[in-house]
């Protein structure tokens, strides 16, 4: 446990959700790792695949229902257009703090050397093809392949 004083060498981030706040959390963590000289890889699975699906990645939303931190009554959050409204407000706030949009963020991650993988099981389930995905995604792999990529000392795994 104490090799190299427990220094983190690589972050393996599993993104399973397609809501804007979760996608950004995964991206900020991956980019932040690279900025500190730590390697980073992201495994996109289930709804997390929407973050790298070319036709969907520009249209991610924040969750207005089932999200107590939105401080919005669930009934209200379920009204048509509510998610879009909350999402566009959040995107405006993000632009103010110099946060890139999803596509630009993917470009930053790729240029920074973050390796990206898509989950084979989820790809099959959603009937997605490799060419539906953002070019920075290297390969469609199994969970076993992902564990192989995670070998080594100082590797940490994170599920979003």
């Amino acid at each position, binding site marked *: 446990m104490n090799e190299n004083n427990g220094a983190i060498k690589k972050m393996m981030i599993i993104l399973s959700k397609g809501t804007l706040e979760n996608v950004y959390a995964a991206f*900020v963590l991956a980019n932040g790792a690279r*900025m*500190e*000289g730590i390697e980073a890889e992201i495994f996109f699975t289930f709804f997390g695949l929407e973050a790298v699906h070319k036709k969907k990645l520009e249209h991610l939303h924040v969750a207005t229902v089932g999200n107590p931190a939105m401080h919005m009554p669930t009934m209200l959050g379920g009204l048509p257009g509510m998610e879009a409204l909350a999402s566009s407000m959040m995107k405006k706030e993000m632009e103010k703090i110099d946060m890139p949009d999803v596509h630009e963020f993917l470009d*930053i991650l790729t*240029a920074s050397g973050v390796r990206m993988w898509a989950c084979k099981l989820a790809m099959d389930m959603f009937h997605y093809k490799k060419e539906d995905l953002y070019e920075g995604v290297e390969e469609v792999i199994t969970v076993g392949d992902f564990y192989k990529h995670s070998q080594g000392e100082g590797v940490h795994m994170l599920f979003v």
Partner: protein
Amino acid sequence: MEKTIAGKNITVNEEGYLTDFSQWDEKVGEALAAEANIPLSARHWEILTYLQNEHKNQVALSIRRIGKSGVTDIKEFYQLFPTAPLKTATKIAGIPKPASCI
């Protein structure tokens, strides 16, 4: 704390960043780069000068801004300063460590 580098006395914080930019010169930059195992090329210097100018103009530095600088792109920035590029480059440039998450 005090530190002697390139035959000069400089003051640095606990992370090794210069606390007074007026103590910086190219020789100090070379020596700080050598400590980080980075031999400086003309491209490195262009970027270091850019960073110093941005700092002078009180621009908050981030990886995103480097990508939009027109001086370099993010990929090259990581190639030139492989480990923690923004932290390393600002240290060599003699300016404070950017408090940026992006």
